[in-house]
C-alpha cells in the first residue's frame, strides 16, 4: 500500500474518532507483516506488560482515587484547607489551589477534579465576590494541578514507558510543582487584595473540627508520599497500601461508600485502566518496531540539520508537546515518549529532566485552547461557553508558560532533588 495513502487514511480515521489503540494495533500488524515477521510477535510484545513490576500500581492507585472521589473526602479536604488558609487575603483561592493539587495527585489526574471539587469551590468563590473570570480560570487551571505530585498516574506511566525510576521522577517533579503552586498562590493573593475580598478570621475551633473530621485521611499523603521519598516502599507497594487503606476507611470507618456501590466504582475505574493498558500494550509492539527501524536516530539526524542547539531543541519540543497533549495525554505519553527519549539523550538532556518537562507540558496541554480537556470539562460543569473559558484561563496559561520556561531552561530546578 502507498505509505502516503495509508497515513492519510489513518489520520482521517483518527480525526473521525477511531480508538487510538485500534490505529496503533493496525499499524503494528501492518508493519510486522510488511517486514515478514509473524503477527504473534505483536502479542509477544504486548505480553511484556505482565513483566513490568510497577504496572500493578496503575489499577490500585486508580481504584483508590475513584473511591476517594466518590466518598465525602472532597468536602472534608476543602473544609480542612479552608480552616488552614481561609484567613489569608485571597485565602479561598489558595484553598482551591491546594485542595485541587492534592486531589488531582491522588485521583490520577483524570479530570475528576473539576467535576468533584469544582462544583464545591465555584459557588464558594462567587459567594466571596471573586470575579467570575478569575474563578473560572482558577478552577479550570487547577483541574490538572497536582499532576506533578506523587502518586499521579501520568508520572507512573511516564516512568514505565521511559524506563526511568519512578521515585526519582516523583522527587524531581515535586519541585516545579511547588513552584507552580507558589506562583498561582501569589497571583491569587494579588487578586484577593485588588478586589478587596473580605477576609475570614482564623478560627481555632473550625480548624479543630476540620482536623477531627478528616483524621483518617490526613495520614494518607504523609504515608504514601513520605514512604516513597524515604525509600520505605516502592510505588507499587505504596499503591497496595493506599488501595487497602482507602477501602477500609471510606467503606467501614466513614461509611461514605456502601458495599453495593463498590462494584460500580471498580468497573468505572477499571475502564480508565483498561483504556490505558490496551493502548500501552498495542504500542509496545509498534514502538519496538520503530526503534528497530532506528527511527529515533533518523529523527535526530533530521532534526539536527535544523536544530543545532539544545536550547532550540527544547523550545521546539515544548511547542510540539503542547500540540500533541491537546489530543489525549495518556496516549501522548505512550506513543511519543519512547521516540523522544533517545533523541533528547543525543542532545544531552537528562531523562528525568525530560520527564518533568513532558509532565508540565501535559498539565498545560490540558488547558490549552482550543481542545484542552479541562476547557470542555469546565464548560459542561460550570455552564460557561468555551470562548469565555479561553479568555478567563489566558492569564493562568501565561503564568504556566513562564513556569514551563523556567523548568525547561533551568534543569537544576528539577534535578537537585534527584542527586547525580
Amino acid at each position: 500500500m502507498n505509505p502516503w495513502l495509508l497515513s492519510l487514511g489513518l489520520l482521517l480515521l483518527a480525526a473521525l474518532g477511531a480508538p487510538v489503540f485500534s490505529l496503533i494495533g493496525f499499524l503494528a500488524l501492518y508493519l510486522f507483516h510488511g517486514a515478514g515477521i509473524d503477527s504473534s510477535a505483536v502479542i509477544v510484545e504486548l505480553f511484556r506488560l505482565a513483566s513490568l513490576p510497577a504496572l500493578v500500581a496503575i489499577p490500585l492507585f486508580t481504584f483508590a482515587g475513584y473511591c476517594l472521589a466518590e466518598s465525602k473526602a472532597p468536602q472534608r479536604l476543602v473544609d480542612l484547607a479552608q480552616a488552614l488558609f481561609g484567613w489569608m487575603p485571597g485565602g479561598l483561592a489558595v484553598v482551591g489551589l491546594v485542595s485541587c493539587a492534592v486531589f488531582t495527585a491522588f485521583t490520577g489526574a483524570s479530570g475528576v477534579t473539576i467535576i468533584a471539587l469544582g462544583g464545591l469551590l465555584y459557588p464558594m468563590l462567587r459567594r466571596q465576590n471573586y470575579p467570575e473570570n478569575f474563578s473560572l480560570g482558577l478552577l479550570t487551571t487547577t483541574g490538572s494541578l497536582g499532576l506533578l505530585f506523587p502518586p499521579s498516574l501520568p508520572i507512573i506511566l511516564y516512568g514505565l514507558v521511559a524506563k526511568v525510576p519512578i521515585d526519582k521522577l516523583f522527587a524531581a517533579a515535586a519541585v516545579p510543582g511547588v513552584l507552580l503552586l507558589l506562583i498561582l498562590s501569589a497571583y491569587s493573593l494579588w487578586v484577593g487584595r485588588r478586589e478587596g475580598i473580605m477576609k475570614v478570621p482564623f478560627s481555632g475551633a473550625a480548624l479543630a473540627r476540620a482536623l477531627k473530621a478528616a483524621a483518617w485521611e490526613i495520614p494518607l499523603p504523609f504515608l504514601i508520599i513520605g514512604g516513597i521519598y524515604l525509600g520505605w516502599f516502592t510505588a507499587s507497594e505504596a499503591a497496595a497500601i493506599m488501595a487497602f487503606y482507602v477501602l477500609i476507611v471510606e467503606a467501614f470507618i466513614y461509611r461514605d461508600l456502601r458495599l453495593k456501590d463498590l462494584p460500580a466504582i471498580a468497573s468505572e475505574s477499571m475502564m480508565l485502566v483498561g483504556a490505558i493498558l490496551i493502548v500501552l500494550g498495542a504500542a509496545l509492539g509498534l514502538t519496538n518496531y520503530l526503534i528497530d527501524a532506528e527511527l529515533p536516530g533518523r529523527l535526530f539526524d533530521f532534526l539536527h540539520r535544523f536544530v543545532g542547539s539544545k536550547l532550540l531543541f527544547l523550545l521546539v519540543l515544548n511547542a510540539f508537546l503542547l500540540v500533541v497533549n491537546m489530543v489525549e495525554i495518556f496516549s501522548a505519553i505512550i506513543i511519543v515518549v519512547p521516540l523522544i527519549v533517545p533523541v533528547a539523550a543525543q542532545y544531552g538532556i537528562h531523562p528525568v529532566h525530560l520527564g518533568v518537562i513532558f509532565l508540565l507540558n501535559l498539565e498545560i496541554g490540558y488547558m490549552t485552547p482550543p481542545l484542552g480537556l479541562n476547557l470542555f470539562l469546565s464548560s459542561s460543569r460550570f455552564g460557561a461557553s468555551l470562548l469565555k473559558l479561553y479568555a478567563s484561563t489566558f492569564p493562568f496559561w501565561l503564568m504556566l508558560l513562564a513556569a514551563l520556561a523556567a523548568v525547561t531552561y533551568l534543569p537544576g530546578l528539577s534535578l537537585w532533588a534527584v542527586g547525580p
Partner: protein
Amino acid sequence: MEKILRIERVLESAERALLAGLLGFMVLLAFLQVALRHVGRWTSEPLSLLWGDTLLRHLVLWLGFLGAALAASRNKQFSMDLSTRLLGGRTRAFSALTCDAFAAMVCAGLLRASIRFFKDEYAQGGILFSAFGVDVPAWTLESIIPGGFALLLVHYALRSLKDLGALRLSR
C-alpha cells in the same frame, strides 16, 4: 436491535462482576504481600508469597482487558473525538460506523495474532509458578489475551450493528 442491546447487557454485567471480584482479590493480595514483606524484614525470614507478585502482575492483564472491553462497549476508549464535537446527524452516524467497524477489524487481526501466540505457549507448556503444591501453567493466565481481544471484537461488532441501525433510522 432489542437482541443486540440484550447481548450487550449480559456481556457487560458478566464483565463487571468479574472485574469487581478480581479487583477485590488483588487489593487484598497486594496488601498482604507488602505486609508480609515488611514483617519479614524484621524477622529476616522471607514471609511474602513467592508466587504472589507473579500472579498480581498477570492479573493486571485481566483487569486491563476486561476494563478495555467495558470501555469499548461504553465508548470510553481514548480517541480524538473531533467528530462528535464538530459533526452532526447523518455524517456523525456514518463516522461512528466507520470507526467501530475499523476497530472491530483490527481486533479481529489482533485476535488471530493472539491465538497463534496462545497456541505456541500452550504447546510449550511452561509453568508460571507453583502455589500450594499445584503447578500453574502459563497458558491459563495468558488465556485472557485471546479472550480479551475476542470480547473487544464482539463489543465493536455489536456497536457497528447498532451504528448501522442508527444510520438507517436517520435516513
